[in-house]
């Protein structure tokens, strides 16, 4: 192995990471690694804590998707209590979860990825910032801000605050919903749906400019994993797990999420703090699979809400399904936002959503519990064990982004082989490597979400240690 190119840090993603590209003596990319360079340690930090503190503690894992951790953690606690929560509580949690989907997908699409989609991947860095986007596409920038704001507003009205709310509790939710707040939420939805429809229109029209990226951004056969509802449609709160393959065939279905460890293993590599989940029957690393918006739409096949189903059909017209290129995560996000808004409306229009019975109360009745929900980035799993006093003794978390770790590594290798040549580093080539990661919208835990760019230096080092080339962003 001759030379090495390092991208450190990766920009416009959430969290800290770097990418290393290894070149052979012919200057071709021979290998690539996506290193997650931060460690949070929550699985150890919570040992000894009372289990009913877990939702509030787990929400602190992330500032972008705290609701996802709240929901998965609360479900694990429901299992420890051995309760079935009131249906109204489940639906309120659903609305909260979907509102987070809306705001998180809006952040990812508009703030993190749209500079690439609209301003091109080859321009100078100063021309590819969110601020530049505001100058060239102010309407779109306003749409992105407003859509995210709507999602966050629903979260605040339901749960009391936008970041790290404590409203989701073991057994249900803390307080019921009143008619005034419900009506305010309903009033926001038409504007949000219009924004998504506008965005889908220009996104569909823009796809023709990205044929090379669509071919090379983590476009390969893999399994897909996610929750589905009882009718096989898109599901984000409950349901069972389904796994499908690259031809769309169901590999495993109606899997109990609590038994995830039977079919998902976790490998560890010394060069990254992020674990490598894999599908056990195929072993590591052959058991590579993807989760998240594209995976969910691939394996469900339909959304179950009319506007989203129509949008997905239009977006995938002429394409063979399932879609294998991870570039299509962008479009899948928009369709999921539309679906989320439709489902929120349907749930809020049910009079039972105002029922006052929103919490089941019990002490610990089991020593082990698993909670699984779909976070914006994919399937999120919280697995807890407690002692007889209800104190935490062991935790295992499989974060949504972790499921995609193998796929992200393979993806950057694929795109780097196509766009990077060892004798010359171009800004566009390196941006495409990063953009491939951004398509997955990884949440490397809230440390950074760049709306522009961060200082970055990339060095090309020869086998004798000499720096052959370097580029820097200031």
């Amino acid at each position, binding site marked *: 192995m001759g030379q090495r190119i390092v991208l450190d840090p990766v920009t416009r993603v959430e969290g800290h990471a770097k990418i290393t590209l290894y070149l052979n003596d012919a200057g071709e990319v021979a290998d690539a690694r996506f290193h997650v360079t931060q460690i949070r340690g929550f699985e150890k930090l919570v040992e000894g804590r009372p289990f009913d503190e877990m939702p509030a503690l787990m929400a602190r894992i992330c500032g972008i998707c705290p609701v996802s951790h709240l929901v998965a953690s609360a479900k694990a606690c429901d299992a420890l209590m051995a309760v079935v929560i009131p249906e109204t509580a489940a639906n309120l949690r659903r609305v909260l979860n979907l509102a987070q989907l809306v705001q998180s997908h809006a952040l990812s699409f508009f*703030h993190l990825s749209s500079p690439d989609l609209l301003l091109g991947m080859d321009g100078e860095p*100063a021309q590819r910032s969110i*601020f530049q986007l*505001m100058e060239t596409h102010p309407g779109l920038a306003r749409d992105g801000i407003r859509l995210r704001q709507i999602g*966050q507003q629903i979260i605040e009205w339901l749960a009391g605050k936008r*970041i790290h709310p404590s409203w989701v509790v073991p057994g249900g939710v803390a307080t019921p919903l009143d008619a005034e707040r419900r009506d305010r939420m309903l*009033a926001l939805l038409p504007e949000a749906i219009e924004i998504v429809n506008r965005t889908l229109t220009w996104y569909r029209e823009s796809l023709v400019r990205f044929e090379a990226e669509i071919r090379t951004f983590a476009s390969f056969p893999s399994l897909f994993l996610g929750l589905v509802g009882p009718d096989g449609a898109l599901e984000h709160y409950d349901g069972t797990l389904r796994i499908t393959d690259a031809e769309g065939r169901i590999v495993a279905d109606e899997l109990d999420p609590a038994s995830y460890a039977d079919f998902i293993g976790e490998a560890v590599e010394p060069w990254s703090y992020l674990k490598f989940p894999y599908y056990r029957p195929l072993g590591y690393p052959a058991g590579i699979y993807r989760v998240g918006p594209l995976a969910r739409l691939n394996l469900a096949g339909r959304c179950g809400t009319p506007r989203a189903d129509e949008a997905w059909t239009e977006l995938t017209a002429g394409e063979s399904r399932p879609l294998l290129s991870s570039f299509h995560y962008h479009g899948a996000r928009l369709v999921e936002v539309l679906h989320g808004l439709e489902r929120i409306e349907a749930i809020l229009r049910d009079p039972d959503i105002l029922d006052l019975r929103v919490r089941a109360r019990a002490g610990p009745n089991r020593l082990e519990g698993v909670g699984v929900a779909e976070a914006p980035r994919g399937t999120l799993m919280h697995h807890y064990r407690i002692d007889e006093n209800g104190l935490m003794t062991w935790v295992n978390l499989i974060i949504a982004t972790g499921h995609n770790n193998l796929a992200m590594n393979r993806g950057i290798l694929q795109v780097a082989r196509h766009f990077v040549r060892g004798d010359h580093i171009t800004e566009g080539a390196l941006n495409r490597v990063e953009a491939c990661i951004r398509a997955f919208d990884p949440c490397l835990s809230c440390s950074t*979400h*760049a709306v*522009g760019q961060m200082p970055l230096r990339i060095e090309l080092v020869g086998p004798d240690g000499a720096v052959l080339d370097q580029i820097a962003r200031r």
Partner: protein
Amino acid sequence: MRALVVGIGNPLRGDDGLGPHVIERLREEGIGCLSREGVDRLRADETACLHQEDVDVGVDLLACHQLTLELAEPASRVGLVIFVDASADTTPGIVTCRRVPPLDAESAGATSHHCSPELILSCAELLYGHRPAGWLVSVGAASFEPGATLSLAARGAVAAVLKRCRGLLRASEVPPLRSVYLS
């Protein structure tokens, strides 16, 4: 004319909580009236039925962990924005006050963890058609360690910060301040 005072920081990280602390002190003095909810309600419909606590007395107060782009629109609806923040680059306890300049395009690529006052106000103009006057009142921080208490240096600076904020509000001819119901 209306004004917006934004206290920036995490109340659980020592002196980083100075901004939100100042907002609470301003509320206790009777300055400001609109909760976030009130701001949203008015923004959604200016003719909406208002509650007692929504009555406009000229100053909106907002405490937030960090600046986000969502602040650009409410900023565009006022004539003056005062940002209050702790600073790691200033001697502990020292209060500085500077106008928020137009955004330098070269530095526009800030991270959203460092979404600056300059970016917010420039976005207000770029996206919503109006750039308010802006001031940044900073206090040198002694510590950002976990904890809900301000350091001695930061506590000692609060009176000066409040005086500065009141002075800026008066100078901008914001309507008379009066006590109102706070949600």
